[in-house]
């Protein structure tokens, strides 16, 4: 019986290894391709690079706008994440702690907003931002990222704040703190996991987003990476070396950030994403 169990465990393990490998195959081949020369990519059928080379990365580094666009992506992601974790924290706290007709309508509307076809608001915003001369600036994209991520972030915070006992605040209020002070001094300092969960989703959303950036960022020097790679793919469709190298580098920040906050991500997506 015990041996039987061991065999089944081994089979399960190796099946999962194979499945995981197959699922990640597009990414694995992409990374491997980025270390092949363009001519090798065209002619060779080997999956592993036969002549390992860094020429694609060198080309990307010296001949393209990649780092400018990388910097743009970092700026947009930084502000998008920072502002949305702050603004959403206040709103999430209000929805978790206070009760009124307005608040309950507001919190339900937030849920509806999440189902919005974004394109609907992008059309008027494009015209509006053109009058404000915000097209082709990072501001346009940042303000959109912050706002569009709010409903999800607020609901995630609400779930987290609901789990914090109220007695803590009551004690602080008896000691003379007002609501704002209570929130800043008592609640926020113990909300690390909640903030981390909101931050990772906001980070991923801002860093990965394509549609909005594609509409509002028109010239190469202000583009974020997703739009930059897409444009590069159209212009130099045969230069797969640079394309795969750019895509590989793009994944690095995502993976790094993800590894740091991975446990909050899984907890958060289970609780927040499904609820909201």
């Amino acid at each position, binding site marked *: 019986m015990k041996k039987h169990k061991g065999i089944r465990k081994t089979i399960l393990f190796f099946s999962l290894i194979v499945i995981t490998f197959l699922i990640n195959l597009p990414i694995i*081949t992409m990374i491997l391709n980025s270390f092949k020369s363009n001519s090798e990519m065209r002619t060779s059928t080997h999956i592993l690079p036969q002549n390992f080379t860094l020429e694609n990365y060198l080309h990307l580094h010296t001949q393209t706008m990649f780092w400018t666009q990388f910097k743009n992506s970092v700026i947009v992601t930084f502000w998008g994440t920072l502002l949305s974790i702050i603004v959403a924290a206040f709103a999430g706290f209000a929805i978790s702690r206070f009760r009124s007709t307005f608040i309950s309508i507001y919190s339900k509307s937030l849920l509806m907003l999440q189902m919005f076809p974004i394109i609907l608001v992008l059309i008027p915003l494009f015209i509006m931002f053109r009058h404000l001369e915000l097209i082709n600036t990072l501001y346009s994209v940042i303000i959109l990222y912050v706002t569009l991520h709010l409903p999800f972030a607020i609901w995630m915070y609400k779930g987290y704040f609901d789990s914090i006992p109220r007695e803590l605040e009551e004690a602080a209020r008896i000691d003379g703190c007002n609501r704002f002070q209570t929130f800043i001094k008592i609640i926020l300092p113990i909300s690390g996991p909640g903030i981390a969960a909101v931050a990772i989703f906001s980070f991923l959303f801002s860093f990965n987003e394509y549609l909005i950036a594609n509409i509002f960022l028109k010239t190469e020097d202000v583009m974020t990476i997703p739009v930059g790679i897409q444009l590069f793919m159209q212009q130099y469709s045969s230069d797969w070396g640079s394309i795969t190298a750019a895509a590989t580098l*793009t994944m690095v920040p995502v993976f790094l950030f993800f590894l740091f906050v991975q446990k909050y991500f*899984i907890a958060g997506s289970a609780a927040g994403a*499904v609820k909201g």
Partner: protein
Amino acid sequence: MSLLNISKAEKPLNRRKIDWAPYNFLLPSLILIAMINLYPLIVGVMYSLQDGTLIQPGDFAGIQNYIDLFRMSEFYNSLYFSAVFAFFGVIGSYLAGLGLAVLINKDVWLKGFFRVALLVPWIIPSIVSIVGWRWLIADENALLNEIITFFGFSSINFLGTEGGAIFSVILIKIWRSFPFMMVSILAALQTINNDLYEAATIDGANRWKSFLHITWPSIKGISVVCWILMTIWSFNDFDTIWLLTQGGPINATENLIVLAYNYTFIKSELGIGSSIAIVSLIILMGLAYLMLRFQEED
């Protein structure tokens, strides 16, 4: 777990005075949402009733845009494709997510590794996944075709034929979506007490019966929510389709969102573009309503 279960909040300490504190807390988010969601929504409805271009919105045209839209075969085509895309996307990603969730919920080595490695398709940028996939399916010599021909079948033109393109976008949509299903189902699976399965085995239940009577009841709620959410997200999907096929070949993979984008930002027909977006909104609100109803029942 219900969405609508607004928590029992503390009563204002002083009942007579209006307590402004909650509104101060809500204010920043309210301003942003009013500016970026609410105002454009109203303007969008108005644009859908106007002539004109993206550069110069025109005169009031009544419901002419909608009449034009409902006469366009392209519209019905994209409505149909949106439905097909969402339907197979949801089914495929649910089944894959369920299967993998059940597998990694078992006592397996390197559980943490699998749980992270299987999330990769979900967390990477859409553009990166398309770059990765393109290489696998781009032409006759692409890896997937090498494998197909190795097994003696003729190679498939994934991106050049209508059927191939539809298959490809759905496949990649499933690939990008299943981790969400997996994580959600896994969370529900972990609440099940394993003793139940042992008791069922002793009582002579086979695996299918244990699944039906123990597993399914505890993942049913989350499953329905995931189906509806994923339907909404698939309906709203732009990246997968646009980055892979741009809606082509011809209109084969054009969903409502891509259609709205095409009319507004490529053809600059503001009225038609906005009316497509409004129609999408109505469909999505219907789906959202379904979900809220379901959660209230639950």
